[in-house]
């Protein structure tokens, strides 16, 4: 069963090598001798991570909670981590935080920037942050009172959002809506991964 995940699909051993070498970050204890692989070493795939961010009170904790398996844990003030079991061998961690942090966002496959329709300006800083980072992001207007007061295009304009960045609406309290928003992000990450997308436009300082 060595080299196979619990569902029988191959574990990406080459990829693991890549983590070890190119980042020098994963120092697994050296495998001693020829004994059987332990359960830990025969581990599942590395977990994935998505960042859920936006201004305070925008619904990050609500979003992470609604789609996670169990209640998220709070690692520090205003930072929640939720876990979603996508497959038996593949976990997704959701990091809900208002603070941009290169260390915390490292390795994320993307970010959802939540926008409060009554306070769009709260999202400016985070959008600027992601425009300058390598982490793909989409923007989702959390519809607190059930309906948008303006057309989505008007929000795009108000947010000065690049036309290529997906803009959508969501209901952070609704697990299906939160899951659909995450799907949009992953689809977007897939799309830009294939083409050689141009860097984001320069933002005047």
């Amino acid at each position, binding site marked *: 069963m060595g080299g196979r995940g619990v569902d029988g699909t191959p574990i990406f051993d080459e990829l693991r090598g890549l983590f070890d070498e190119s980042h020098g970050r994963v120092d697994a204890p050296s495998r001693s001798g020829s004994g059987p692989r332990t359960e830990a070493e025969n581990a599942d795939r590395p977990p994935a*991570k998505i960042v859920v961010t936006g201004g305070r009170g925008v619904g990050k904790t609500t979003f992470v909670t609604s789609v996670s398996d169990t209640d998220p844990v709070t690692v520090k003030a205003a930072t929640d981590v939720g876990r979603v079991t996508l497959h038996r061998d593949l976990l*997704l961690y959701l990091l809900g935080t208002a603070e941009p942090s290169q260390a915390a966002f490292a390795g994320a496959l993307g970010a959802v920037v939540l926008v409060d329709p009554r306070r769009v300006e709260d999202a400016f800083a985070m959008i600027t942050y992601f425009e300058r980072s390598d982490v793909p992001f989409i923007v989702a207007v959390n519809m607190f009172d059930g309906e948008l007061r303006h057309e989505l295009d008007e929000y795009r304009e108000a947010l000065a959002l690049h036309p290529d960045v997906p803009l959508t609406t969501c209901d952070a309290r609704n697990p*299906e809506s939160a899951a659909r928003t995450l799907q949009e992000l*992953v689809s977007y990450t897939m799309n830009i991964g294939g083409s050689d997308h141009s860097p984001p436009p320069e933002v005047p300082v």
Partner: protein
Amino acid sequence: MDTISMRSNRIRLYALTGGRTRPRHHLLVETLISVPHYDPQFSAGLLPESRALYELARKTISMAELSAHLTIPLAVVRVLISDLAAQDMVFIHPTGFVYQYDQIILERILDGLKKLPV
């Protein structure tokens, strides 16, 4: 679960980590930790915080959950877990660093998300 007394928390944690803030390993919130070969004698010889981490990691657990369950700051958990890893007593699982560029795994993540909520 053991809760650790938070008496003179800062001083205690400073002493524990020897003032080190930079761990030798890059440990993210989602990085999974486990104990490959549990050793009760080793556990008994550890300081309470490290012992609590070691015991919790007998079942594979994330850095975020370790920090939250023991109410030990993430930065301190990083240093203590690094020390345990340096002694080969815990296994630091790889993280999905290149998933952003891996179409096959992204497809699988998408597929999992489409089946939510279960």
